[in-house]
């Protein structure tokens, strides 16, 4: 595992995340979000979970980000007056970050390096999905269908 690569990807991802959270224009933020997901996918690659990384790129960058963009386009005008930034939230977020970091650094058992591990093949993943995780898989399928129908019903025009 390459530290340099990790640091570059991490900085890149976090910068994009910060941009996504703070940029004034919604469209810019949505595009930054795409960058964040690409960064995370890179981190997954770095960790040896190529399949998940790819799935992330496909689903998030390909589907979710596009959805976000479409939503932004579908809700162009905004009559809301207050576009201000809430500093209370920032303080809480910083506090949470501090707390998490403190506890991560104070937990000795986490200071480990990665053990050697055989590469995880797509075949293995497929096998596991179809055997042990077959029920959860079916459930997720059902869930996705339900979400699809639900989303459709939600966005259908209200009947007068």
């Amino acid at each position, binding site marked *: 595992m390459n530290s340099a690569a990790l640091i570059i990807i991490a900085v890149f991802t976090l910068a994009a995340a910060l941009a996504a959270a703070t940029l004034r224009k919604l469209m810019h933020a949505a595009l930054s979000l795409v960058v964040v997901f690409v960064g995370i996918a890179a981190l997954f690659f770095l960790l040896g979970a190529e399949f998940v990384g790819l799935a992330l790129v496909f689903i998030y960058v390909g589907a979710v980000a596009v959805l976000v963009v479409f939503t932004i386009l579908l809700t162009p005008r905004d009559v809301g007056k207050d576009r201000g930034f809430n500093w*209370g939230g920032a303080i*809480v977020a910083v506090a949470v970050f501090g707390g998490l970091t403190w506890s991560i650094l104070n937990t000795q058992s986490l200071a480990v390096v990665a053990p050697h591990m055989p590469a995880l093949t797509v075949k293995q993943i497929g096998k596991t999905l179809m055997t042990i995780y077959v029920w959860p898989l079916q459930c997720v399928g059902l869930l996705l269908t339900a979400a699809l129908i639900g989303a459709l019903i939600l966005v259908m025009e209200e009947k007068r």
Partner: protein
Amino acid sequence: MNSWIVTHLWLVPAEPFAASLAILSVSNTRRKSAAALAVAGQIIALALSVVAFVSTLQTHGFRAVQNFTWFTFGDQTLRLGFVLDPLAAAMLVMITVVGLCIFVFSVGYMAEDKNFTRFFAYLSFFSGAMLGLVIANSLLLVFIFWELVGLASYLLIGFWIERPSAAAAAKKAFITTRIGDMGFFLGVLWLYDRAGTLLFYDNGRGCLEGAGLAMLGASATFVALLIFCGAVGKSGQFPLHVWLPDAMEGPTPVSALIHAATMVAAGVFLVARVYPLFSLGAISGVTSSLTVVVWIGVTTALMAALIAIAQADIKRILAYSTVSQLGLMMVSLGVGGVAAGIMHLLAHGFFKALLFLGAGSVIHGCHGEQDIRKMGGLRRFMPVTFMTYAVGMMALSGMPFFFCGGWTKEEILHATAHWPPSHVPYYLILVGVVLTALYMTRQIIYVFFGNPRVAAERAHESPRIMTMPLIVLAFGAILLSAVLTPAWPWLHGYLTGEPTYFDVARLIQPMLFVSLALVSAGVGVGFWIYRKAGTQDGGRPAEVDPLEYAQPALFRFLANKMWIDELYARTVISFSWMAARLSDWMDRYFWDGLVRGFGAIGQLFGIFTTSVDERGINAGVDETTAGARGLGRVMSTAHSGQIQTYLGAIAIGMLALLLLYAWLA
């Protein structure tokens, strides 16, 4: 083996209780059957009491107990019992005789009342509770009947329920006596803890017998004093005497039965009953608990006698007289004259019931008027009442030779004179005797002598059913002397368990002359001061009391009962009201606010964002202006319906969990 009456002693209180229940269950309109039931219950109780009394005459110092298990808790048992001894038997007879007279009197006195049946139910209930009290062989059983007696007194004082003053007096009586009772209750607990039993006599294992007393040791003083608290409350001793005069709001027979003859005597009886606790470890008859009893008694006796001089209500004078006499009995018990105290109690039961019923007869004759200044000259209109009242007055004043009160009072003086620690109580009691004669003379003159005034104009003698009990009681007050004289102190011997013999030489004793001189002085001074009471005399208008004319400030002080009620109202009562308000306020605002505040900590984020936002500043301003209510508003701000606020709360909760982790790690 116990005789039949001992094993069935419970029947004595059961009769009036049964009568009470029966009366309550019959219709309100069946007056005759109600009265008949009550009187019948009382007669049966009297008969059983006489049987019990006779059985105690078998031997000197007769005592029989009948104990039983009330209930088992865990693997322990709580036992109660009844005891028959001279003290109980004498009380039984006194209560039933006096009670019967008063029941009969009530039939006439209450004839017009619309709640006639309820009155007799209460009266029977009271009688049953009182009879139970005197035969109880367990301090707990005494306490139980003690409370029931208090309940009956509460119900009867407040009998004329539509009068606010009666309700207030009933409340005052119940609460004041309950203050004393709480001390009594603690005494019960303490005794139970130390002695392991509450039975008085239990074949040598009772708490008043050798082994039980030995286990008590030094705590006996505290137990005795706590029990005395109860006696102070019920017997109207200083500083809890304030309820007794107000209790005169009840119907007059009630005043006679409860607040003169029997219930108030319960305190004296209680002290006599548990006397071994008071005298445990006595050095020449003096213990610290008994010393307290003496001083409380002296204070009460003198104070009440002084106040009685300045009262205008015929029943209030008698009420204060009762307080004073009870104080005298307490002194007697305290200085070691137990028999003297009880004898005075029995005698007092007769003559004070007589006086109260006489007063009732007077009030009845004067159509409800109770102010003695408006009476006068009644001896011509109500001769029987006058004669019997005079007997009662002589007995109360302590006129020697023919009236029972004289002999018992003399014996009390005798006991007090020889009290080792101090002679002050003796001298104060001498003053008390003079004062008693004085205020009784004043009352007699105002009511029966002089010119008839407003209320006396249409006065009439009471019907036979009311005068008969008066005559019976008057004879009782005189005839009781026969067993009280020093020449043949039969009652004394009966109570103490010592043999008595007749010796006419002992009849004449120095104390007799002291007593005679004091009473004569009191009566004489009374006649001199009040000879023209109720008429215009010199610069004094007719309606002004001679003493008031001579010493207005002193008279006002006494007429206002030394301002003790006012003092209590300013201190104890207002303090407890403040405490109540404070508790309520603390509850509504402080505790509730605190708990809500704790809740708000969990929702800090809500407060935080709102304090940043303009809305928050507004809420903050409101909070300061609306005081404690603001906290609630902050809470409802937290329920803002804003998902971000909720999300923030979750984040804060996460932080709190992290902190907990840090603390535990």
